């Protein structure tokens, strides 16, 4: 609270803008409450020195450290919320003034800039953790970012190295990679036992993995309703709706939250494929991280033209956790497997096959590929993906050159022309499909 109060006093204009930005999000009061509860719990760890606070990169198997009492903090989630609030630019510029380059990850720069300025988590800041946990499965920046944060604060860092299953490799190679990641998970357990001075809490671990799998199952089931007409939820909603699944801090509450939404969806649709309102004019897939600072792109610019984002591998990628197996070893192997094959990081061959399935299952009329300026790994292969999909389906594909958390990379005028051109292409495509 001290940091938030200080932030408000020092940046009253930014705070008001941030509030407006938060209120402009597609959030229900309950979701807003969950988000605030999570941020407040993170802040409270500072007042509870007996509780451990871990800082995690996206994709890290949080259940393992969480079973040992580490409360999970996510700098990327804080940065995303800051971007959504429309407050990321000062932090990014501050990080750039420290020497971080313009083409580096804007999550990282938001987090570093806000943290160095002493801003609270609501505005991208990140308190010093007891330990830092990074995994490179979705991002190469994580490793160096977390390593340097750990070094600066003189705290331990555990780096999980997840190999990429590249196109052309034999399927048998996956098992070798599972062996490799499993070994590191055992190392992680040893690391946690050393840090905490306690034996690994298997009971708690199995409970957390079970809950995690249930959260993901509910999220996946809810996603199935997005295949119906009209889709149950659009991207502007799902991008914040996934927060309880991503943050993993209060699993039972997340299960209750998603169960309630699933029941609502079941009631709304029943067995019907099409309900009142019917099919959207244009059903679109979004590939890549969302533009956090630009919710209006989804709920106004695209929506006004009848184009709605009904699928995005990005959100679905967080929903891949499996149920625990009979033994600790088998469960760790399953976690390793789940982390190697993630929709967001599939190799080109698998990605093309995956998209071919999505085009049919979601009855898509267009695809937007976010060529992310500060996340080149996630943009790699998009031209090949575009070519393959257009060749097979003739489906319109729009490549958007912009950034997930840095609004300076988004030029409204030129972007609107591209979007309108894309919508005109979808109009022809839908006519041809019919």
């Amino acid at each position, binding site marked *: 609270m001290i940091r938030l109060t200080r932030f408000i006093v020092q940046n009253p204009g930014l705070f008001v803008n941030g509030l407006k930005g938060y209120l402009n999000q597609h959030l229900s009061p309950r979701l807003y409450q969950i988000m605030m509860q999570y941020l407040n719990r993170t802040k409270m760890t500072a007042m509870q020195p007996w509780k451990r606070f871990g800082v995690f990169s996206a994709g890290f198997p949080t259940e393992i450290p969480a079973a040992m009492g580490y409360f999970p903090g996510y700098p990327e989630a804080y940065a995303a919320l800051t971007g959504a609030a429309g407050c990321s630019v000062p932090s990014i510029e501050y990080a750039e003034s420290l020497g971080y380059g313009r083409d580096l990850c804007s999550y990282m720069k938001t987090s570093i800039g806000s943290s160095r300025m002493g801003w609270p988590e609501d505005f991208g800041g990140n308190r010093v953790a007891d330990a830092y946990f990074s995994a490179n499965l979705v991002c190469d920046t994580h490793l160096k970012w977390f390593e340097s944060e750990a070094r600066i604060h003189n705290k331990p860092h555990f780096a999980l190295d997840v190999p990429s299953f590249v196109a052309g490799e034999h399927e048998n190679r996956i098992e070798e990679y599972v062996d490799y990641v499993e070994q590191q998970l055992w190392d992680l357990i040893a690391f946690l036992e050393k840090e905490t001075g306690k034996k690994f809490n298997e009971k708690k671990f199995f409970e957390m993995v079970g809950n995690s799998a249930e959260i993901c199952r509910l999220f996946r089931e809810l996603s199935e309703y997005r295949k119906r007409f009209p889709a149950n939820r659009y991207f502007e909603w799902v991008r914040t709706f996934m927060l309880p699944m991503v943050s993993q801090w209060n699993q039972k509450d997340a299960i209750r939250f998603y169960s309630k939404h699933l029941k609502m969806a079941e009631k709304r649709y029943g067995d019907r494929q099409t309900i009142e309102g019917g099919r959207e004019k244009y059903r679109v897939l979004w590939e890549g991280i969302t533009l956090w600072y630009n919710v209006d792109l989804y709920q106004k610019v695209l929506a006004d033209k009848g184009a709605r984002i009904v699928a995005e591998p990005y959100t679905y990628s967080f929903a891949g956790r499996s149920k625990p197996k009979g033994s600790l070893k088998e469960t760790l192997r399953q976690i390793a497997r789940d982390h190697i094959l993630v929709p967001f990081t599939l190799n080109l061959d698998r990605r093309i096959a995956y998209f071919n399935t999505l085009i049919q299952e979601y009855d898509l009329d267009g695809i937007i590929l976010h060529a992310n300026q500060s996340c080149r790994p996630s943009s790699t292969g998009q*031209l090949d993906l575009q070519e393959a999909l*257009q060749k097979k389906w*003739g489906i*319109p594909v729009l*490549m958007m*050159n*912009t950034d997930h958390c840095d609004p300076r*990379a988004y*030029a409204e*005028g*030129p972007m609107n*022309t*591209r979007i*309108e*051109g894309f919508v*005109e*292409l979808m109009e*022809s495509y839908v006519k041809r499909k019919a």
Partner: protein
Amino acid sequence: MLTVGIDIGSITTKIALMDKTKLIYTDVAFSGYDMARAWQDIFKTMLLKTGTKEMDISCIVSTGYGRGSVGIAHKKITEISCHAAGAAYFYPDVKAVIDIGGQDSKCITLNGSGTVSDFVMNDKCAAGTGRFLDVMARALHVELGDFGAMDHKSKKPVIISSMCTVFAESEVISMIARGESRENIIAGIHESIASRMVSMMNRIGVSKPLVMTGGVSRNKGMRTAIEKKIGLKLLVPNEAQVCGAIGAAILGGA
């Protein structure tokens, strides 16, 4: 049936009046600061010069970056579709269009019926656009209209290595300081833009007949540089600069 197309670009505003498929009138004026004023002036001039009454016009279509500012427009269509329709008006079997405008450059592919099948535009960067040429003309103290003739006199085009307008300008200034001839620098600038255009064309896969539209198409040096790099002849209608407005007028009657 009279239709009007108004294309408001970042540098110029263009207008075209059509009677069904017959082109009656075209005009070009600077967009300036006030886009609304730009289209109103050019529209009034058109009415005056052609003796047309506003009530006789069945459809007005606006296009270009300022399309949203044309309050009287019945439709707003992107310049992508309009340039394609304009090019197809002059060359009905056109397969691809390249348009280098003031603010962006684009490659458009068309299907058999003259409608857009795909397009690609430059990234958020002025390099490879008409604005880029403007900046270079200022740096070289040369009128943009003389670029074509000067390019023709070039003996050895320089290599412009920078992909950014600002850096390229610095590069050009250092070349001037080194004593490099303006002709060679201009030819190098054309080749640099042509390289960017050809990358875009290769991305989308263009084939002939290939039409060039937009104001930059008047620059012969630019056309030659692109033709040399892509290995295809460019078709350029006399009204290339107003192709977007013509296409808009055509789509207004569709």
